[in-house]
């Protein structure tokens, strides 16, 4: 990074100019794991979006058929129209409600069970084998069965999300709990703590930051399962909006809806990031 700093400091002022070598372009930008200037990082980040937009515009111009690839401008117009005339925000609201409700139910069950599995061999030995097996069964494959069992209502949507989130999250939380260093617990014992005190004063707080990270990751997956469930059968929601748009051959609306989901994902991610930063200011940052 600034490996030359000590050298320049040691050199007398007159010699400083001579010793400060200008590093070449390749050396600055193509050294593995080397940080690049902040401005360059920002430019590249924004640039990638510009490139995507350019390619998209170019592609839509070449294909010249809004049915297959509408231009970015057309998608924006479609989005405004959807909000104004199609009650699209109502669909967004329904999807968000389902996500939040399904996710909360799954998390409320997965986190305690995962913590118990990670700390008690007895609980782990009992629950882990079936959960490991179910984890590999895609939640979307359950949808037809759930429709038979629960019909087309909200229960079915929530169950799909629950299946998609619960089994993954349980195992992630279990790993987190399992990784709590035993020395951390042992210190508490030698300070006179009882097992219960060790559990709630040391073990639980030690897992919190990573549990929130796990929630953040699984929240992203919840969106995938919900949209699939809504695509299969729903009267409301972003997924059903996409399906109806397909019937009317409105690729612009489909793209606008997909982008909306992406935006909602970004917003939830940002919320989790804010929670993490304010609740766990003591966590050492791995990335700068």
């Amino acid at each position, binding site marked *: 990074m600034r490996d030359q700093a000590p050298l320049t400091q040691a050199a007398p002022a007159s010699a400083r100019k001579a010793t400060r070598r200008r590093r070449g372009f390749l050396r600055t930008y193509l050294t593995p794991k080397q940080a690049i200037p902040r401005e360059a990082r920002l430019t590249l980040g924004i640039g990638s979006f510009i490139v995507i937009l350019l390619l998209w515009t170019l592609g839509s111009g070449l294909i010249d058929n809004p049915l297959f690839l509408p231009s970015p401008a057309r998608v924006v117009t479609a989005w405004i129209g959807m909000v104004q005339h199609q009650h699209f925000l109502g669909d967004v609201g329904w999807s968000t409600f389902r996500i939040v409700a399904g996710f909360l139910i799954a998390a409320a069950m997965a986190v305690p069970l995962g913590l118990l599995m990670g700390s008690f061999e007895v609980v782990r030995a009992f629950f882990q084998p079936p959960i490991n097996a179910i984890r590999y069964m895609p939640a979307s494959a359950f949808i037809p069965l759930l429709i038979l069992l629960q019909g087309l209502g909200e229960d079915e949507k929530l169950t799909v999300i629950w299946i998609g989130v619960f089994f993954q999250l349980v195992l992630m939380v279990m790993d987190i709990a399992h990784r709590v260093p035993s020395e951390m617990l042992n210190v508490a*014992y*030698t300070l006179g703590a009882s097992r219960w005190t060790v559990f709630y004063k040391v073990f639980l707080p030690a897992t919190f930051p990573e549990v929130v990270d796990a929630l953040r990751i699984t929240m992203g997956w919840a969106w995938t399962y919900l949209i699939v469930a809504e695509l299969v059968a729903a009267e409301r929601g972003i997924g059903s909006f996409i399906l109806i748009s397909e019937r009317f051959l409105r690729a612009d609306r489909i793209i606008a809806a997909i982008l909306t989901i992406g935006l909602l994902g970004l917003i939830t991610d940002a919320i989790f990031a804010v929670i993490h930063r304010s609740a766990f200011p003591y966590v050492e940052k791995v990335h700068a």
Partner: protein
Amino acid sequence: MSEIRFVDVAMRFKTRRGEVRALERISLTVPDGQFACLVGPSGCGKSTLLSVAAGLITPTEGDVLVDGKPAHTPGADRGMVFQSYSLYPWLSVRRNIEFGLEIKRTPRGERNRQSSELIHLMKLDGFAEAFPKALSGGMKQRVAIARALANDPQVLLMDEPFGALDALTRQIMQELLTDLWQRYRKTVLFVTHDIDEAIFLGDVIYVMTTRPGKIRTTLTVDIPRPRSFDTLKTEHFNELRNQVVGVIHEESMKAVESELARA
């Protein structure tokens, strides 16, 4: 008066490749207020012996007695300091130090008074409200020692506490620890593989054999206290050092040979 006594402590582990004898019939007594060091080649079971003393693991045979009472479970009478610091990252320096007092339900004012004193003594002034992530390795270990001392244990067990520190910091920490011991006169059992450290700190050095661990030699360190950096330069220090080095070297060679024989 608080002595710790090991009576015929033996430890055997069952593994897939058979039984491993980690400790064999160890008997020793650390009398009240003594600073005892355990040194030995790596893998000789010195840390295991310390965990037995802490009550964290149960010996296969024998007993550990603190003031004549058996110590089968961990307790506040035996404070422990680990090499890995094991601070609680979500607590400030002050609350880490007060952890044991909080468990004991010591009133807030008294807690504060004690932690403030230790923070000053451990040269942590200005860091009371900092989280451990802001501290250097040496500072983290000072917090860990303060946390153990705040609890006022009868015996202090230290498992290679300075093993992860760089040589310069380690020297500073050793000086700080002798000063502290001078002040508190705790009974200390200190595990290390650093011979200089053992001589500098200890009243008595127990040299352990390679696995299965036994006490091979007991050496009294008759260097006068208080000790300081200059102690390291004396002729007598060197003599003691050569004695211990000779024994440890022999044991380390045995350890290497038995590893080769097993391979």
